[in-house]
């Protein structure tokens, strides 16, 4: 594909500063000029794409995990299905989906959601199963019903594992979402592809890539803070 074929740097004589014309590593004037029309919109789109993917992925994984936890026979097939999705290379998956769902956001989200399922499903099931046997026996002996045991004991105790899954899913989704620009002109992958096509403009690649990394770090940090707030007991 042409976008991946990086030719020699051809000076862009059209416009911009000297730094920009020579394809410099860090052209502050370009960054200042294009933050508003290129980088910021791409960042916002990237956040949107990732949030939707992790949100939907979490909803599906949670539903599957509840079934897999309650009915042990379902656990193996669900896990294998999520495993299978995870093994498909992302470039291939996006291309495979285009004939079905077209060059749309749906294509992107289906692929991104697919990648979150394995981590979220496995972690949620493992978390639900991690409840100490004696706590379950005490719950039963004290007269908690099955539903009460699940809501008051099993689910809260699974929160650390679930959040650990969400952290991995968020970071990997933010990373993979750059590939979405193959399908739709959105997200931080877009300026990277544009820069690759246009003379391998290093400043733009660095800026967009840096933003993606920063976004992943911020998302991870927010989830850590959320977990601390949700599970005061895990620091005890």
């Amino acid at each position, binding site marked *: 594909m042409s976008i991946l074929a990086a030719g020699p740097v051809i000076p862009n004589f059209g416009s911009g500063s000297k730094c920009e014309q020579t394809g410099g590593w860090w052209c502050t004037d370009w960054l200042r000029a294009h933050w508003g029309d290129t980088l910021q919109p791409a960042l916002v789109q990237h956040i949107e794409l990732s949030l939707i993917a992790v949100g939907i992925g979490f909803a599906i994984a949670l539903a599957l995990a509840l079934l897999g936890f309650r009915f042990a026979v379902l656990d193996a097939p669900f896990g294998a299905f999520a495993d299978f999705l995870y093994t498909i290379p992302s470039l291939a998956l996006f291309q495979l989906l285009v004939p079905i769902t077209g060059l749309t956001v749906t294509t992107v989200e289906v692929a991104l959601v697919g990648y979150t399922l394995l981590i979220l499903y496995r972690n949620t099931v493992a978390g639900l199963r991690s409840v100490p046997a004696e706590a379950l026996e005490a719950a*039963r002996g004290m*007269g908690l019903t099955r539903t009460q045991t699940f809501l008051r004991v099993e689910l809260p*105790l699974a929160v650390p594992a679930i959040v650990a899954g969400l952290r991995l899913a968020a970071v990997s989704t933010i990373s993979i979402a750059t590939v979405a620009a193959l399908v739709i002109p959105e997200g931080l992958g877009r300026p990277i592809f544009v820069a690759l096509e246009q003379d391998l403009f290093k400043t733009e690649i660095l800026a967009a890539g840096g933003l993606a990394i920063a976004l992943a770090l911020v998302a991870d940090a927010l989830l850590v803070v959320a977990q601390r707030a949700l599970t005061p*007991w895990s620091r*005890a």
Partner: protein
Amino acid sequence: MPTSAAEVVFDHATKRYPGRPEPALDELSITVPAGEICVLVGPSGSGKTTALKLVNRLIYLDEGEIRIDGTKIYDLDVTELRRSIGYVIQQVGLFPHMTVAANIGTVPRLVGWPKARIRERTAELLELVGLDPAGDGSRYPAQLSGGQRQRVGLARALAANPPLMLMDEPFGAIDPIVRARLQDEFLRLQHELRKTVLFVTHDIDEAIKLGDRIAIFRQGGTLAQYATPETILRHPADEFVAEFVGADRALKALALRTVGELELGPPRDGPRVSSDATLRDALARVIDEHAESLAVTDASGTVIGSVTKDDLLR
């Protein structure tokens, strides 16, 4: 909710597991009077824990009946039944994500007590089991020692003031010094609360110390003897019981009574012993001092009488 103690009757209670020739519990028929501690003791595989878990229906009863205050347990709703029975297990099973106070308030919350009443009850229970209501209530189980956890487990089981307590080796995982203290405190508590308690242990000394009555089980889930500690020590029903209570059962029996319970002779000089010492401790004193008799003192240290070596051994 009834707050007084409940009588528990096992009526030919039998539990079999498929694929095993011997029953886990074979036709157990005993009556545990209201307000007493009945200790179920025996080697592993003798059915003592099975008998306990049949009562709150954690294990299904195959044959026979169990009645609590005359009501068959299978005539009751299982959730209601369990909420009206305090349950304490060796591993305690505190909920790690809940504070000590929240753990204790579990059953009161389930049965819908108002918040203020739960708070009040929690503070009362923390104090009762020797914890600090102000500081310990907001801690998490991971921050407690083993002994403290078991105290919380006991408080949690007592929370809704159940007439019956089931305790499955509650002090089994605790070091001997703390265990002895917990046993003493448990007896002091029971003196106040007068619950009916079924208490499982494999430790015959614990059984003798705590039990108003002891049910000794043997392999195959059969009851070997059901009697007071004194009767079991002085008149073991058979070889198995005699061996199980130990060769030193005569000494153990001495530990069941205090000097004050004997008919004392006139005050006289000699090594002193307090009237609330056990006969066993008094005998140890006789041996230590090479004495033929001891002067018995009351709590203030005044000599109120005497005992001879023969009195102690009679």
